[in-house]
């Protein structure tokens, strides 16, 4: 997507001087009350179908997504109205204060599409059409087989310098096959090799592994609404029972970071100074006794994970072992993802005691993560832990409406301290996303805000 379409602005990769960098908008500013966001558009930008970028096009793009009410369009819900001030200026008026810069840089619902395609139904896009302004466009598309992209001649950044004319994406599910193709040079870039090969990938002469943070993280959520995990000391005991380093090694082959709180490393809102649980069986047992489970828990607690997720599958036995050490008997139940989610939603009594969840934000703001996963909900959609804490809710809502970054960060930190102390969830690890490539391929940028994207424009051999 991110090679065909562009948003108004991008979230910069970590280590950049600015939090955002311009894309289709050259400059932007926010009113003092954070309710009005004005974007000044780049002039002379063409869409693949020949249309031009104007304020009207931006307005219609956003309105189309909002009207579709599908997928991730909910992130646009703070928008009250969009005004095309002049041909190249667009102003977003919000219902309530929100960090609209992060919303506008989302990889999900903030792409700008050409005005001519706005009226087309979703099926039109499923058929392999595109209407973006990005550097590449679809040349041919064979479902489950390959997609060929060719460069868009009128791309606004131009084609001076070293770029690829064509990009061929082959759909290869088998990790071993990907590795062989890289070894033989029939592929330049891959996203998956077997985990054993991944560890030693950099020893190869032909190829190398790059990696960077991804904003994806794994957690295990404890059902706080029913016994036994309605007991805070017991939940803390669980957090002290886990061997985090071993989990990271088994789950991701070491490619990641042990989690510090719910917000992944590198994302706005992450706080490195949060209390860090470490494996400490003595302390865990002490807490068990304090919680009134001196002799352990014989009655099995049910742990579910998404069967199609290899990482969760790999860590499940270790979780059982870690908890057995402090006397908790775990019953492991693999379920296909949608079934696991159904079980969570079936009400606190019928839901599992523990569930593994891979999470990534739809836009790079901690509010969505914290709100979705731990905000009080009558009927939980994502609050796997059935967590209820009005003070936590108040803090994150206030933080979201605070446009000033340092002040927002302070509020988010406070909210996360509460969460970590209450221990409704075990924060396992943040995922580092690996990329496997031939050595001669250069110019790869890994941007954690867009974890599933390889930006081709900057690549060359």
């Amino acid at each position, binding site marked *: 997507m991110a090679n065909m379409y562009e948003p108004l602005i991008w979230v910069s990769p970590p280590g950049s001087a600015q939090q955002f960098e311009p894309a289709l908008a050259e400059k932007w500013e926010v009113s003092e009350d954070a309710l009005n966001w004005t974007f000044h558009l780049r002039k002379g930008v063409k869409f693949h179908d020949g249309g031009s970028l104007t304020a009207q096009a931006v307005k219609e793009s956003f309105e189309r997504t909002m009207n579709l009410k*599908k*997928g991730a369009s909910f992130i646009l819900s703070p928008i009250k109205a969009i005004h095309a001030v002049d041909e190249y200026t667009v102003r977003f008026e919000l219902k309530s204060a929100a960090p609209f810069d992060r919303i506008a840089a989302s990889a999900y619902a903030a792409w700008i599409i050409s005005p001519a395609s706005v009226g087309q139904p979703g099926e039109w896009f*499923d058929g392999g059409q595109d209407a973006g302004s990005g550097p590449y466009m679809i040349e041919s598309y064979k479902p489950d087989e390959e997609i060929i992209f060719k460069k868009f001649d009128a791309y606004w950044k131009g084609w001076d310098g070293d770029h690829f004319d064509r990009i061929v994406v082959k759909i290869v*599910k088998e990790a071993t*096959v990907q590795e062989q193709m890289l*070894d*033989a040079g029939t592929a330049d870039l891959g996203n998956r090799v077997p985990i054993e090969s991944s560890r030693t990938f950099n020893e190869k002469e032909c190829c190398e592994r790059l990696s960077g943070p991804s904003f994806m993280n794994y957690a295990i959520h404890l059902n706080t609404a029913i016994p036994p995990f309605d007991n805070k000391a017991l939940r803390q005991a669980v957090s002290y029972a886990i061997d985090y380093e071993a989990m990271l090694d088994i789950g991701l082959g070491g490619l990641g970071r042990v989690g510090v709180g719910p917000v992944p490393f590198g994302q706005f809102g992450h706080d490195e100074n949060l209390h860090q649980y470490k494996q400490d069986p003595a302390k865990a047992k002490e807490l068990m006794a304090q919680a009134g489970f001196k002799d352990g828990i014989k009655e099995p607690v049910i742990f579910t994970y998404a069967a199609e997720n290899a990482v969760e599958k790999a860590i499940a036995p270790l979780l059982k072992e870690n908890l057995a050490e402090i006397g908790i008997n775990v019953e492991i139940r693999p*379920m296909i993802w949608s079934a696991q989610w159904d079980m969570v939603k079936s009400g606190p009594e019928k839901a599992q005691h523990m569930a593994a969840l891979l999470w990534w934000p*739809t836009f790079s703001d901690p509010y969505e993560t914290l709100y979705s996963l731990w905000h009080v909900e009558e009927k939980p959609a994502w609050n796997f832990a059935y967590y209820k804490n009005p003070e936590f809710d108040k803090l994150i809502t206030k933080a979201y409406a605070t446009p000033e970054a340092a002040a927002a960060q302070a509020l988010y930190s406070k909210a996360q301290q509460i969460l970590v102390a209450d221990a409704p969830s075990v924060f396992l690890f943040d995922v580092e996303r690996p990329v496997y490539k031939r050595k001669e391929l250069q110019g790869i940028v890994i941007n954690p805000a867009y974890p599933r994207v390889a930006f081709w424009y900057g690549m060359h051999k």
Partner: protein
Amino acid sequence: MALFIIKRIGWLAFVLLGLCVITFTLSRVVPGDPAAVYLGSRAKPEQLEAVRLKLGLDKPVPLQFAFYLRDLLHGDLGSSLRTHRPVLKGIRDHLPASLELMFVAITIAVLIGVPLGVIAAKRENTVSDHLSRLFAVACTSLPSFWLAMLFQIVFFRWLGLFPIGGRLDTVVGLTNPIEHLTGFYLFDSLATGNWTALRDSAWHLCLPAVTLASYSTGLIARMTRSTMIEVLREDYITTARAVGVSEKEILFLQGLRNALGPTMTTAGLCFAFMLTGTFFIELIFFWPGLGTYITNAILLNDYPVIMGVTLLMALFYVSVNLVVDILIALVDPRVRLK
């Protein structure tokens, strides 16, 4: 004969209906919300509700089944929850790739298996019989996914003789695109005189087709051998020998013709089995066939696709059986008379 065929077709319809009931029930009683699959991983409750209404998931399951049957009779298999594309179109896109692979594989299996069986029968209990037995047992017992990876390592990685997978080289696809007539690359490129693409797609077919053929080759060879041995012991063969019919004629005309019945049934069943046998092979050789299509669907419980493909496979299996039975009835009058 007509009555025989009508009776068999009646059975076919009954089997398919039964299958519909079973797959539909199974795919709907397993937990998991189809609306969640339809919307992707970040759906909101109100969006889920809207999709449930749209897909008719709020209705009781028997009623949903009735709707499904009604659409089915109109030739509508529904749309994939994952890609939102019609299942029928998905099948049309993926089936030719699988069928082409299967046709080539069964041809290889028959061309190697039958002569091997005949030779083994002729030289019963000699070294060549033992060797052919060893080969046949190896063919049937080596798992196809293992064989596939072995071939990739040997023929792609070490020798560099064959491509690792796919149906056509990307560069060939760009310079000599195959006009879409039937979806069978060999046929389409041959019909349009596109020799480069013909050569390239045949080249791509080699490894997956040989892998797929291996099980059937072994089975056909064993089957041919045992029926041939039986036939060669019949009185009429001895008589033929006595009156001086040449050994070649005895083997291939008198012997093989009479031994062909069971071999044909075996080959037919092998062919039908291949449709499911291709799944692993398609995955490893990233062959964009039906196996790839349904594997993706099963992982997500994309039930319209699972239903559609299962029905198609059942229809295929039952029809191949029917055709084989009719062929045997034509060859062997005893079957007809029973």
